[in-house]
Structure formats: C-alpha cells, structure tokens
C-alpha cells in the first residue's frame, strides 16, 4: 500500500499537478479574454502550439532554454496584438459578435494548424529536459523540471491574480469587462486595454506551450488536444473567472491523473466532459462568477 502511494499514486499526482499548472496558464488566458472582451478565442490552442514551436526553433538555433522561456511570451505579444487589432476588432461592434469572433478565431486556428504542419511536419519534436534528475522527499521521487514548472507556474498565476485584483491596471480591466462605455467615459483607454489583455492571454498560452514542450513534446495537433481541456476548465470554473480557472484546472487534472490509474487513460477525457456536462446542467454559470461581475 505504502509502495503504491510512493511509487505510483504520488508521482502520478505530481505529474497531474505540473500538467494542471500549465493548463491553468492556458485557461487563464482564455478566461480573461472571454471575461473582458466577451470573445471565445478558438485560436487559443494554436497560440499554445505556436509558443511551443517558437521554443523549439529558439532551442534549435542555440538559445538557452531559460532564455527561450522568457523570450517566447514576449514573441507572442505581437501575435496577440495583431490578432486582436486586425481580426477580432473588425467585427467587435457588430450585433452577432459572438458568432463572428468564434468563427473568425476558429478559421485562424485552422490556418495556424496547417501552417505549423507544413513548416514543421507531422512528427513530434521533443526538446531535451533542461533539468534532468530530481530529488527524493519521503521516498517520493520529485522530478526537478516538473517541480520547476509547478513553482514558476504558481508564481505566474499569483502574479496574474495580483495584477488583476490589486493594481489600478487590474481595476481598469475589471471595470472595462463589466461596462465598457462607463469605463471609457472615465478615461480608461478601453481599446488599448483590450489589445493588451488579448496579447497577455496569448503570451500565457505560448508560455504554457514552451513549458510543457520538454514533457509532452511538440506536435501540430497539440493545440487541439490541450484546448479541449482548457475549455472544459474554463466552463467548469465559470467563463471569465480567474479563481474558477485555477481551481477547476488543478482539480480536473487531478481527477484525470488519478482516474487514469484506475481505468484506461482513454476514458479520462469522457470523465472530464461528464463533469462539465453536470456543471452545465446544475450550475450553468460555472463554479465562480465572471470577471468584473462582482
């Protein structure tokens, strides 16, 4: 029993935790973009993939992994700004904005997806683990890179929370999320806040991409695969809720990790979707409220 805990359950939960943190980074971007702009960003998964591939390219051209981790989110910023300015903004004021932005970002995701496949080929690429090895605590082996991912991710999540809830920039974002006209009439540069937030969400997705690259490797369909979980997390946590994205992200990935010990891993996704369906049936707004809505 103890052996099972030590060698099977604990490592599996730790894996799930590292994965969960990365999913939360992705879900945060998704939920903030939805909470503020009311846009369901279907290309978020491809932003994640682009981040991972950008990392691969940087590493292949001799850039140090840690530098790449810092560079990728920065490189993603212009991708986000351009997507927001050139595409989302064009249909933002139309009456059927929801449908249009959804289709627009879905189309964009297809272009990115095929683009990545054309440039990099269909086969997975896997960057070397930047910190191999690990330490043993109470008989449980803690892989160093996963621990690093957990700490860095947690720090970023905490920073995002602090920016949104404790700074005047965050107050601007929350105000604009609730009432764009009133915020604008008080001098908040709403359109710049939109671009910046979209870019910030994009950068978080890219960061998740490069951070997960050494663990899950990099392949063209990765965006599709991870976005489904990220969307589930956002729906369960509450569309537009930061707290919800964090809690649901960590919880659902644990459910997935533990369930895959008991049943075949292919059945873990249906369990997540089952939870999502239950939440949608009994609490359609998700576990927590939307950004800026009290």
């Amino acid at each position, binding site marked *: 029993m103890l052996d099972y805990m030590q060698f099977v359950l604990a490592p599996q939960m730790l894996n799930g935790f590292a994965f969960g943190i990365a999913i939360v980074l992705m879900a945060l971007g998704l939920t903030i973009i939805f909470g503020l702009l009311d846009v369901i960003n279907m290309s978020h998964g491809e932003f994640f993939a682009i981040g991972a591939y950008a990392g691969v390219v940087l590493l292949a051209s001799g850039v140090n992994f840690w530098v790449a981790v810092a560079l990728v989110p920065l490189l993603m910023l212009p991708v986000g700004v351009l997507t927001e300015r050139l595409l989302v903004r064009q249909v933002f004021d139309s009456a059927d904005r929801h449908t249009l932005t959804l289709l627009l970002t879905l189309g964009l995701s297809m272009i990115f997806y095929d683009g990545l496949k054309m440039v990099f080929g269909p086969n997975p690429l896997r960057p070397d683990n930047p910190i191999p090895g690990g330490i043993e605590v109470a008989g449980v082996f803690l892989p160093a890179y996963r621990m690093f991912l957990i700490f860095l991710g947690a720090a970023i999540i905490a920073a995002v929370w602090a920016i949104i809830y404790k700074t005047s920039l965050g107050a601007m974002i929350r105000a604009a*999320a609730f009432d764009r*006209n*009133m*915020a*604008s009439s*008080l001098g*908040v540069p709403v359109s710049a806040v939109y671009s910046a937030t979209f870019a910030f969400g994009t950068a978080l997705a890219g960061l998740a991409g490069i951070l997960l690259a050494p663990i899950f490797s990099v392949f063209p369909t990765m965006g599709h695969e991870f976005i489904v979980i990220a969307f589930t997390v956002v729906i369960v946590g509450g569309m537009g809720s930061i707290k919800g994205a964090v809690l649901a992200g960590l919880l659902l990935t644990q459910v997935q990790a533990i369930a895959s010990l008991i049943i075949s891993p292919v059945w873990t996704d249906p369990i997540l979707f089952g939870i999502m369906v239950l939440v949608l049936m009994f609490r359609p707004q998700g576990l927590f409220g939307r950004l800026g*809505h009290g």
Partner: protein
Amino acid sequence: MLEIRDLHSHYGFSHVLQGVNLTLRPGECVGLFGRNGVGKTTTMRAIAGWIKQISGSITYNGQEIGGLASNAICRLGIGFVPEDRRIFPGLTVEENLKLGLMQTAGRSGAQEAAALERAYDLFPRLKQRYRQMGTTLSGGEQQMLAIARVLVGDQKLLLIDEPTEGLAPQIVDEIFAIMRKLKSEGHAILLVEQNVKRALDITDRICAMERGRIILEGDGNSQADRDALMKAIAV
C-alpha cells in the same frame, strides 16, 4: 462651450433624436426636461460618445467631438454621471473612485491624492465605506459615488442624468446641495431631472424636449418661461 447642432440619432429603425439644437456656456447650468422616452438620455449619451450612429455636429470649445471615443471626450473635460449610476460591481468604493482619476491626465500623485480627499470631504459616507464593494452601497450612496467619481477628475462640464431618481427626500436635498456647490465652483452642468421644481432652483436656462427635439428654450429665472416649460412637458 458645448454646441449641439441638428443632432440626429437612430436605434435601429427608430429615429430617436430628430435634430437637437442645444448650447451650453461656461459655468452655466442648463436643465433638459421632458416626458419619458423623448430622448434626454440619448442626448447625453451622444455627447459622451456612447452612441456612434449620430449625424449633425457636437462641438466642445470649438472642437468637433461627435464620433470621438468616450475616453477622448472625457479627456477634453466632459464628465458623465449616467442615468443608472453605473457603479462597477467587482470594484470597491475606493477602486470605483480612483478610476475617476483617469479622467484627467498629467496630474502628480499629490494632486490626485488631494482630489480624492476633496471627494471624500464632500461625501463623508463614502469615506466610511471605502473598502466595501461599490454595488453593496444603498441607492443614494451609489449616486454619491457616481458623482464623486466624476468629481475626482478636473472636468469642466458635467452631464448629470436623473441624479435623484428613486432616492429619499433627505438624499435628494443632499444631491441638490452638491450640485449647487458645483455650479458655484464654476462647473457647467447639463442636468436632466424629473423633479422639475427642485431643478429650477439651480438652472440658469431650461429646455423642453419632445419627440427628439428641443421644442422650447427659456430663462430658468423667468416665471413666464417656467410656466411655459411646465405646460410643454405636462403629461
């Protein structure tokens, strides 16, 4: 200061503003009166840049502001206290108030702190409740917050839409006292108010609106003009 010429606006197929003409001079308080649904709020929103489908001209100190973004209009010195107060729910009283600081660019931290302090002096209840969520305030307190939030900026023209709607008489008195004070400090005010009798105490000029047009304009201190106004807007 503010000059509106032949302003038209549409919501879909309904032609809400049908050629509004309105002038406001510095330091002047103009009352805009009319029955429900005649377009008073729409006029205010058009000035504040909330409504984009407008034609005609709105100039502020000679500059055309029709079609500008609301934040650009705000930066020119126009403050807006809208009809339904529009307190941000996820923000505390203080966060709501501090957001108002953004109306005026280029002030030092000390100047901004002084502006906040002035607002709190004017509305001591807000100071007592500064950490509370804005929407947990009572209706009257939310109205005070909406006014205070605009006052922390250095705005010259205030658009105030139905500030006493649904409030207790004592709060109504307080709000009118504040507006009188603002006027004496030199703010120009465009006021929409259902409580016409009270509003007449502070208005220099009065306008009656009917179906998207100003149908009557007069001197707020002339009894004949007041009578004409009451007749024009009588139900």
